[in-house]
């Protein structure tokens, strides 16, 4: 059983996304919105480029935490706001950084706060995962 102390780093990881990652997630999730793989469509709706699925970013963030926890059975809640896009360059992809820290602890649960950044930009708002303790 993990112990949780406010401020402790639960996990931290760099993930390199490529266009292949987006196509793979599209197939696995069933989300085939073309803004996640077609530059022309992304451009036509005014986006800065092809974007990673918000749910992919959300999924990556919880994967980093689950790798540290070793189990998902204690997770009771997980929520995020999608505040900024992750633009995935066709050649260079995109680097996403995930930092998970203990934000709060009470008698029955711990709140893990997720800071997910793309370059200098934080892309998820109020990203919190709650585990029973």
């Amino acid at each position: 059983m993990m112990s949780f102390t406010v401020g402790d780093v639960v996990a931290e990881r760099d993930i390199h996304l490529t266009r292949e990652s987006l196509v793979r997630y599209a197939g696995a999730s069933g989300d085939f919105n073309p803004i996640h793989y077609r530059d022309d469509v992304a451009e036509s709706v005014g986006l800065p480029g092809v974007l990673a699925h918000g749910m992919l970013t959300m999924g990556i963030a919880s994967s980093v935490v689950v790798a540290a926890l070793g189990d998902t059975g204690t997770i009771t809640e997980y929520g995020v706001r999608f505040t900024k896009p992750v633009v995935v360059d066709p050649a260079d992809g995109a680097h996403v950084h995930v930092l998970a820290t203990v934000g709060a602890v009470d008698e029955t649960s711990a709140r893990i706060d997720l800071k997910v950044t793309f370059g200098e930009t934080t892309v998820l708002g109020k990203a919190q995962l709650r585990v029973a303790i």
Partner: protein
Amino acid sequence: MPVNTELVGREFPPTAPYLVGREKVREFARAVFADAPLHTDVDAARALGYADVVAPPTFAMVIQDQTLQQLLSEPGSGIELARTIHAEQRFAYTRPIVAGDELSGRLKVTGIRTVGGNAMITSEAEITDAEGAHVVTATSVLLVGAGE
């Protein structure tokens, strides 16, 4: 066409049962960089007390998406996919999703807030197993932009 605010309170019928496959869980886990062994290794999952491999927490969106398709295809909803942005997502779990589960989702529109020409639509998909027991509730907030 603006978003139809009379959709608030609307409940949709449960979606057809979705059988969670072991290889689908592995495929999804790989796609979200989920490398904890319980997602891919049956023995590791069983050692933790599960019947089969365990889906990553956001896998519930696959079932939620089926429920949202009902909302998007509702005649006169005023929700156009091209103008829709996923603004917020939450999950509240009773237990993890495990390969072999047969899941069904029941969507309820819980709120629509209009600001200018934009609409924020909040909906809850209650996902239950073959016995009707609660597995996870998936709440999404969709932002639908003003049309031309």
